[in-house]
């Protein structure tokens, strides 16, 4: 039952040479093939992974190994990789192989990870259900008629189904935390600037942040430690080292003030979700944490603010996909205008086009002040709300999403209802803060419930530490969807 082991346990077995990396890699490749119905992967690199595993075994034999040597992982298909195509879930890049590796890919490779493949995702990370992917939707392993969340839906489904021990994701408005919540995982969105964005195909540059999707806080600490840190290739990268795994995990809950924003505990949230979050809070309280009421009075403005800023940045970021230097090029390209308009119309899916159009609209002459500039001001107000709340508490706690995983197809006809899924998560990206979702229960249908922790800027330690302390007491993070154990 190798696939049930944590990163730490796998590392021990590999280092004691009780299992080889090749064996482990084959095991996971077999599982990926066996459960291909989930559609969690876009590309699998069997040959490359086995070569990497052999290499890792050599190093393990010579005791030259790093923290993650020989452990198979998968990357969200938004991170550029030299060996495997990088599609971003889009027809536009369905034939694109990047000439370089993203910093995150390079760092995890340097830590010894074996990359097995690239996971499915919403097209250009725009979506909350993994239904906008050109490569088809992903199924939630807890209930295959349900969505896994998005946009890092393939990463979440594959870790939850034990097809891979850990995977990378990206989070622009909740794209790590919401799928983590829907799939019963621990998902970390680090502080903006912690994890290099170099080689991560941009959706909304001032909001995007890479992070790990893992089964536990402990695994999250190991992955975050390996992924993060200063990168001179990213001008928004913070020049501070990432805390060690021990520093990330070692937290005394006594005296830690957990802030409960009244706005996050309102009637729009499912009762089952609220119930599980409250139970989790009691456990933390028992271990010495203090619960305090706080307020984030402008959080309702988060969604409108986000859906102006993110599309605006995206409309510009996606301009480089024009059929000239890479990516899809239309056959009907008699004039330059045709080349641009047809390549882009054919290469992008409907949701991406919708967001490009709205982003172009809010930046265009006559609308900039009313929409874009206004949203930037509200962004400041939202960020200030968090600062004020953190005067009264150390970590803010609430549900990650208002409900558990919804049905496939349930919200595809109504983009706005889909957007409302981000209601508790996207204000965090606007403020650039670190945040983590951890599993705290199952609802009546047996679907996982996620609780969100939000920390001060650069304080991932309190989040991972709190989650780890909770997981020492509980076993929600060890629950595995029935057919995948």
């Amino acid at each position: 039952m190798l696939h049930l082991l944590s990163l730490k346990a796998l590392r021990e077995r590999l280092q004691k040479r009780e299992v080889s990396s090749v064996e482990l890699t084959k095991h996971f490749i077999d599982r990926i093939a066996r459960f291909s119905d989930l559609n969690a992967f876009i590309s699998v690199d069997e040959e490359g992974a086995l070569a990497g595993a052999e290499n890792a075994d050599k190093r393990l034999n010579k005791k030259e190994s790093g923290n993650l040597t020989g452990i198979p992982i998968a990357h969200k298909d938004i991170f550029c990789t030299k060996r495997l195509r990088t599609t971003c879930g889009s027809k536009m890049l369905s034939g694109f192989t990047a000439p370089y590796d993203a910093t995150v890919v390079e760092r995890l490779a340097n830590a010894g990870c074996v990359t097995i493949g690239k996971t499915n995702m919403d097209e250009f990370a725009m979506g909350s259900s993994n239904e906008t992917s050109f490569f088809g939707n992903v199924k939630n392993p807890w209930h295959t008629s349900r969505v896994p969340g998005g946009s890092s839906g393939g990463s979440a489904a594959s870790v939850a189904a034990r097809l891979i021990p850990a995977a990378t994701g990206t989070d622009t408005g909740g794209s790590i935390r919401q799928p983590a919540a829907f799939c019963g995982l621990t998902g970390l969105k680090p502080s903006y600037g912690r994890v290099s964005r170099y080689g991560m195909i941009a959706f909304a540059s001032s909001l995007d942040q890479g992070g790990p999707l893992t089964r536990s806080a402990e695994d999250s600490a190991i992955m975050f430690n390996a992924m993060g840190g200063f990168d001179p290739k990213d001008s928004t990268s913070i020049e501070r080292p990432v805390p060690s795994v021990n520093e990330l995990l070692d937290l005394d809950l006594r005296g830690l003030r957990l802030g409960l924003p009244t706005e996050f505990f309102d009637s729009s949230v499912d009762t089952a979700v609220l119930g599980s979050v409250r139970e989790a809070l009691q456990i933390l309280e028992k271990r010495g944490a203090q619960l305090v009421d706080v307020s984030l009075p402008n959080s309702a403005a988060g969604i409108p603010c986000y859906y102006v800023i993110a599309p605006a940045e995206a409309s510009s970021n996606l301009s480089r996909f024009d059929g000239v230097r890479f990516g899809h090029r239309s056959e009907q390209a008699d004039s330059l205008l045709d080349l641009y308009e047809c390549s882009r119309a054919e290469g992008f899916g409907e949701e991406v086009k919708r967001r490009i159009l709205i982003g172009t609209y809010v930046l265009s002459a006559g609308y900039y002040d009313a929409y874009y500039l206004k949203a930037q001001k509200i962004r400041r107000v939202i960020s200030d709300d968090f600062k004020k709340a953190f005067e009264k508490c150390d970590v803010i706690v609430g549900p990650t999403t208002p409900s558990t995983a919804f049905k496939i197809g349930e919200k595809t006809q109504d983009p706005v209802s889909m957007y409302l899924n981000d209601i508790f998560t996207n204000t965090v990206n606007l403020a650039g803060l670190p945040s983590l979702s951890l599993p705290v229960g199952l609802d009546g249908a047996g679907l996982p419930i996620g609780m969100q922790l939000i920390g001060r800027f650069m304080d991932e330690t309190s989040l991972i530490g709190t989650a780890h302390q909770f997981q020492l007491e509980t076993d929600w993070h060890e629950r595995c969807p029935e057919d995948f154990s």
Partner: protein
Amino acid sequence: MPISENDVTRVARLARLRVTEAEIPQYQAGLDGILDLVAQLHESVTDDIEPMAHPQDISLRLREDQVTEDDERDLFQECAPAVESGLYLVPRVIE
């Protein structure tokens, strides 16, 4: 409907996305829904508030003026749809 057909056409042209006549109503409805959602923005009073463009309070880091990149044209052009003599090709640009 705050968004007109003309708006859709204008924005689609700016964004270089071909939208057919038949698709216009669908995008019009989509954009309308989003604008309706973001309309709440106008309710907040934000006088005297400094717009926030970056989530961090840092200034630009500068790199030293050194050539660090080699010629990787062949590698970069492997994924290019149309090249000749090292140039990317596009339909004739009329100046």
